[in-house]
């Protein structure tokens, strides 16, 4: 692989203290370890309409942003449908209220996320990076704004070279104004997942928002503005760990954005009077559109490179050019390393994509997703922890029976109040001497005292296993049983 080669494109070479002579002779030059970042001006439109993969990318933008901006506004039973109340440590997800004790579901979701990443990367390379990553999606949105204010690549390059003028200032101000507006709304929406968004909107609108809400709105707003407006591909190249470690998930059967070197080379514009074959040229017409559209500023014709986020912009650009030139599409296409080397037909590629590794990932993923759904569906909105009294192990009650005291930490994790009945079993004649029922308002927790009694002749001295049950009076489905021990006295 000749990836990671720093190749000069149509940008000036990295600053060198020594001078590289254009002729071949000096084989070495002095270079610095740090270089000024060269601004990338990705060309966004090639042709009149969006390319095939561009449409997919925009679909992903619309879907993710519709969900992200829309969800916090949904209401459910008179409250926000999706609210992560960190202060109260309760996560409201539609009909569900998750408590810190439900962290296991978060674990499952994280495992699902990780396995999905493995699966999709094994199949299609950096699909996440190219289509769904917020960095990509917001850069896409910011680029769209940029194009509508400053124009596409060529106009932007010219504008940036021009000296400051009233027009340039106005354009730049408009662009940054629009970016900041989107960024602030993004920050506001994000905070709206953690604090009721409708109240937050009122607070923001009346300039009453303060403290942490305001800080985080500005923080995430600034992060969006900075990352999507200024940092862009640098986030992927220098900051994102995922961008780097996923190359470890690639194998020769992973679909990647690939330039068909055999078909394309030798490249050249050629002359229209002769056929390309007669001129000894491959199909690449050296239009450089694939380089111009690249949001990370690489040349895909140099092969797989770590900077490539797999966005497929170059495929769309090249297909357009191939169409215009009357050549078959797919000079740059999704293909695999093995398919290129062994000249697979499309059918064979898919046969190799469904390889054991992918099937195992898919199988585990399906199993965990199914488990999560079953676990969530069977979740009982009641949690009980039995804590034996720390002070008194066992005592003789006034009626001569042996009494043990327990404290039940009971959590009603549903949103409505509920009356519960206690039960105890595991020893003959075990009776509840305290109040056998209790009530608990919705989404609250309470410590409930339970005193159990049994006749001394019925219980062996020492520790005896018993079970304390809590059951909702009007809903037998909501029942929890907890194991504990009843201590008998030595006689």
């Amino acid at each position, binding site marked *: 692989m000749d990836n*990671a*080669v*720093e*190749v*000069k494109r149509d940008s000036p*070479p*990295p600053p*060198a*203290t*020594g001078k*590289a*002579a*254009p002729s*071949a002779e*000096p*084989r*070495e*030059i*002095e*270079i*610095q*370890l*740090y*270089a*000024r*970042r060269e601004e990338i001006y990705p060309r966004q439109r090639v042709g009149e309409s969006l390319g095939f993969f561009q449409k997919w990318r925009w679909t992903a933008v619309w879907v993710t942003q519709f969900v992200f901006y829309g969800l916090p506004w949904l209401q459910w039973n008179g409250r926000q449908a999706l609210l992560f109340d960190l202060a109260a440590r309760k996560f409201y997800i539609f009909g569900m209220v998750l408590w810190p004790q439900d962290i296991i579901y978060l674990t499952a979701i994280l495992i699902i996320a990780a396995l999905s990443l493995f699966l999709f990367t094994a199949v299609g390379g950096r699909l996440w990076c190219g289509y769904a990553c917020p960095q990509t999606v917001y850069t896409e949105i910011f680029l769209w704004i940029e194009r509508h204010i400053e124009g596409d690549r060529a106009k932007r390059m010219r504008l940036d070279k021009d000296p400051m003028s009233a027009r340039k200032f106005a354009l730049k101000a408009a662009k940054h104004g629009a970016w900041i507006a989107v960024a602030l709304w993004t920050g506001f929406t994000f905070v709206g997942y953690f604090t009721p968004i409708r109240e937050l909107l009122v607070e923001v609108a009346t300039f009453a928002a303060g403290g942490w809400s305001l800080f985080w709105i500005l923080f995430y707003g600034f992060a969006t503005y900075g990352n999507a407006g200024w940092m862009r591909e*640098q986030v992927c190249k*220098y900051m994102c760990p995922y961008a780097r470690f996923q190359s470890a998930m690639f194998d020769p059967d992973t679909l990647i954005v690939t330039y068909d070197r055999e078909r394309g080379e030798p490249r050249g514009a050629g002359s229209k009077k002769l056929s390309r074959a007669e001129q000894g040229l491959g199909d690449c017409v050296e239009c450089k559109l694939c380089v111009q559209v690249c949001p990370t500023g690489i040349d895909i014709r140099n092969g797989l490179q770590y900077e490539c986020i797999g966005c497929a912009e170059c495929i769309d650009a090249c297909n357009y050019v191939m169409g215009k030139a009357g050549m078959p599409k797919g000079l740059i296409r999704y293909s695999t390393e093995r398919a290129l080397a062994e000249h697979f037909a499309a059918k064979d590629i898919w046969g190799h994509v469904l390889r054991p590794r992918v099937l195992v990932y898919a199988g585990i993923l399906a199993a965990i997703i199914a488990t999560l759904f079953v676990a969530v569906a069977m979740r009982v909105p009641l949690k009980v922890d039995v804590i034996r*009294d*720390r*002070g*008194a*192990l*066992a*005592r*003789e009650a*006034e009626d001569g029976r042996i*009494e043990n*005291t327990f*404290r039940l930490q009971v959590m009603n994790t549903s949103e409505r109040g509920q009356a519960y009945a206690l039960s105890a079993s595991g020893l003959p004649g075990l009776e509840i001497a*305290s109040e056998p029922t209790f009530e608990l308002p919705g989404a609250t927790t309470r*410590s409930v*005292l339970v*005193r159990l009694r049994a006749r001394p002749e019925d219980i062996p001295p020492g520790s005896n296993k018993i079970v304390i049950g809590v059951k909702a009076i009007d809903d037998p489905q909501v029942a929890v049983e907890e194991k504990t021990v009843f201590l008998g006295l030595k006689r």
Partner: protein
Amino acid sequence: MNDIGASQFYSAFWDYYIAIITIVSVLGCAVFLWLQSRRTVKAQINAKGEIQTTGHVWDGDLQEFHNPMPRWWIWLFYLTVLFSVIYLVLYPGLGTQWQGVLKWTQSGQYQAEVKAADARFGPIFAAYAAQPIETVAADPKARQMGERIFLNNCAQCHGSDARGSRGFPNLSDGDWLYGGAPSTIVASLVEGRNGVMPPMGAAVGGKADVEDVANYVLSLSDSAHDSVKAVRGKAKFDTVCAACHGADGKGNPALGAPNLTDKVWLYGGSVATISETINAGRNNVMPSFKQILTAPEIHLAAAYVWSLSNSGKAAATTPAPAPAK
């Protein structure tokens, strides 16, 4: 700071040791960054004049390609140096001699947090402390507060249900060693109690005499006993035990002498246990809580304890207050 300075295991040398290492490290980082930002290496170029690798090769074929970091990256490192300088000026990070401009200390932060908590919760406690205990006991919010204080401070001995266990009185049965008036409960909490039953075996007589007295004591509460022995024990009881427990055996709250005519037994109500009590005596301590709890906390805890055996009365004397907002 003075505590450390006064310690014989402490030498001011370590202050300078820490300070010098820290300052030299921070400055060293800055110098290193500056050198790295100017450093150049020799790079290979190919025939087209493109920069290829730095010429570093490991294991024969592992080459270092030329992928320079963006220049702004190095400014992030300079920012960390700047951060540490500001931090060391503001906070005590250079040994104990330099206290930092902010004069921050752990104990200072603790005091500030306590002060903030007092400002927040003080008025709530003060409001309850101003009310009589009977009124406080009728307030469910106050009872919850009292219960939490009880669970953290009292439940270790009296049990989380306040029903005690052997040697630790039941606080919920309306039977009191020293009296159950609210002021008496507060006094028990503030000053503690030391209940002493002296060994009385010798004063009572022999083994049989002690058993006689024990049976008489059981007869006072109509518990199962040997009536012949009980009759024999009465005389001994009147001369020896009645001094504290009273001729009728009803006890004396001023001394903490228990009432023997009810069926409440602190150590157990068998002949054997009562004999043991007579022979060996008992010494029981309720610690003082005035150093542990504040007066308003004791007020709330006492209200909770009082409410356990007076729930009917508390509800009757004061109408249940509306739930707090």
